[in-house]
């Protein structure tokens, strides 16, 4: 039976092969970024945490026994780093002016939509972001989030419905 690409590459990485890790970065970085964007809600933070997660993955890869589970593993690292950041932010409570500026930058120009997405609960925002940023495929989202396919569909559906309500609510308030 052929081993998966991740499995063989992880094996090389576990032997200290930096070059092999480039394959994993290429294959998974975008998914990691999408997850971070979904959890954190802004591009700058997602970039920082996604890079930190990939680096941490390299340094910890010897602890990964099953190479074929690299993606789930690296996404878990990324998610934990996101939560750490959010916890630190929560303790500080008030965002700095710089951070507030970051939140409004480098996304599409539709601020209403951006705000509505940010108001979604995290468990809906993450799959929604991954769906639209990363290929519109519920099956792969299910795999990446380690949930069932029907669970991924349910979250995407709920996200869309809730987003519609938020946008409609905003529209009605402006009338």
């Amino acid at each position, binding site marked *: 039976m052929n081993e998966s690409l991740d499995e063989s590459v992880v094996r090389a990485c576990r032997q200290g092969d930096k070059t092999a890790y480039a394959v994993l970065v290429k294959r998974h970085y975008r998914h990691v970024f999408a997850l971070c964007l979904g959890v954190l809600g802004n591009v700058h933070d997602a970039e920082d945490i996604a890079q930190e997660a990939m680096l941490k993955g390299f340094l910890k890869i010897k602890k990964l026994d099953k190479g074929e589970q690299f993606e789930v593993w690296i996404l878990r690292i990324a998610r934990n780093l996101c939560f750490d950041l959010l916890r630190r932010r929560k303790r500080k409570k008030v965002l700095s002016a710089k951070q507030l500026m970051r939140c409004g930058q480098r996304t*599409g120009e539709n601020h209403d939509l951006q705000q509505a997405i940010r108001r979604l609960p995290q468990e809906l925002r993450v799959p929604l972001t991954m769906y639209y940023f990363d290929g519109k495929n519920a099956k792969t989202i299910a795999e990446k989030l380690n949930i069932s396919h029907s669970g991924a569909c349910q979250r995407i559906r709920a996200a869309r419905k809730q987003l519609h309500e938020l946008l409609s609510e905003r529209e009605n308030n402006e009338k």
Partner: protein
Amino acid sequence: MKSDCEKIKDQIADLVTGILPEAQVHELEQHVNECAACRDYARALKDEDMLLTEFFAKIDTDITHQQERVLQAINQSGVSKQSETHLIWRTIMKSPITKLAVAAAVIVVVVLGLFEFIGTDGTSGVVWAEVAQKIEASPGVIFRSRGTGSRDPNDDWPNGYKITWRSAVVTRTDRYRDGQIRRTIYYNLDTKTTILLAHDAKKYIKEATSDAQVQRAQADKDRWTDPQGLVNFCLALKHHSLGQKTIDGVLCEGIETTDSSGLPVKSFTGRLWVGVETGYPVLVEIEAIDDGSIRHTSTLDQFQWNVDLSAEDVEPEIHTDYEPL
């Protein structure tokens, strides 16, 4: 909106996001055609779908640059490097098409380098004939190559290395220099697509590969991956055993040949090291003196054999800020 329309909302959301089972689509469309409220809801969700697609497409982030930063940080980290042996080979890189040809040629060199040494008269634990069979059966391979001795000013090898992914359908070579990726060359025989990325200049070429180029590449592959032809070719070369040694933690058996008969060089030395346990090549070292008395070396290592390489995995992403060349 009728009370049962509330249930229909779920299906509409699923339809818009493409996750509604096919069997339910017709019935839903019928309802939507008959119910104004659901029609409005479906239209609104479709509009929002477009907005969302556009919104996420506009997110300004340079994935490739971030990937490179990660790799750069790793290279600068304190993790020990694997032993680096010097390699050999010469590439001529004067035009994109030539670069493409070189990508294919590198593959040929790899296979040539491997099979030139395969014989049956050794006494080692490695069954060399089985090495050829395993290589042929491997659906895909990833490896690193480095070299010295080029006279071509466009050749990066003395200061860099290449990572190549190769299957029967796709070949991709990433060229690195000083730890930075500079060029990517991708070749897909199925879709007849050629992609060249000049990362340092943020330029790209994506074009259809001509039938003649595909046939030429295919002919090269057929020639060098035909097991019978290769074994016959290899049997014609003399070689001797180098015994066993451990390379990067892997116990290997090696053979060496200095038989340059039939090769367009003054002298030639090749060494092939194969993992005793796996039976796959671990290291290939080649040294040649060409007819201009230039010494060329090439090392091919960090092989990942028996990997499934889909075009989706291998095809490079053309970043949005890259301009056509």
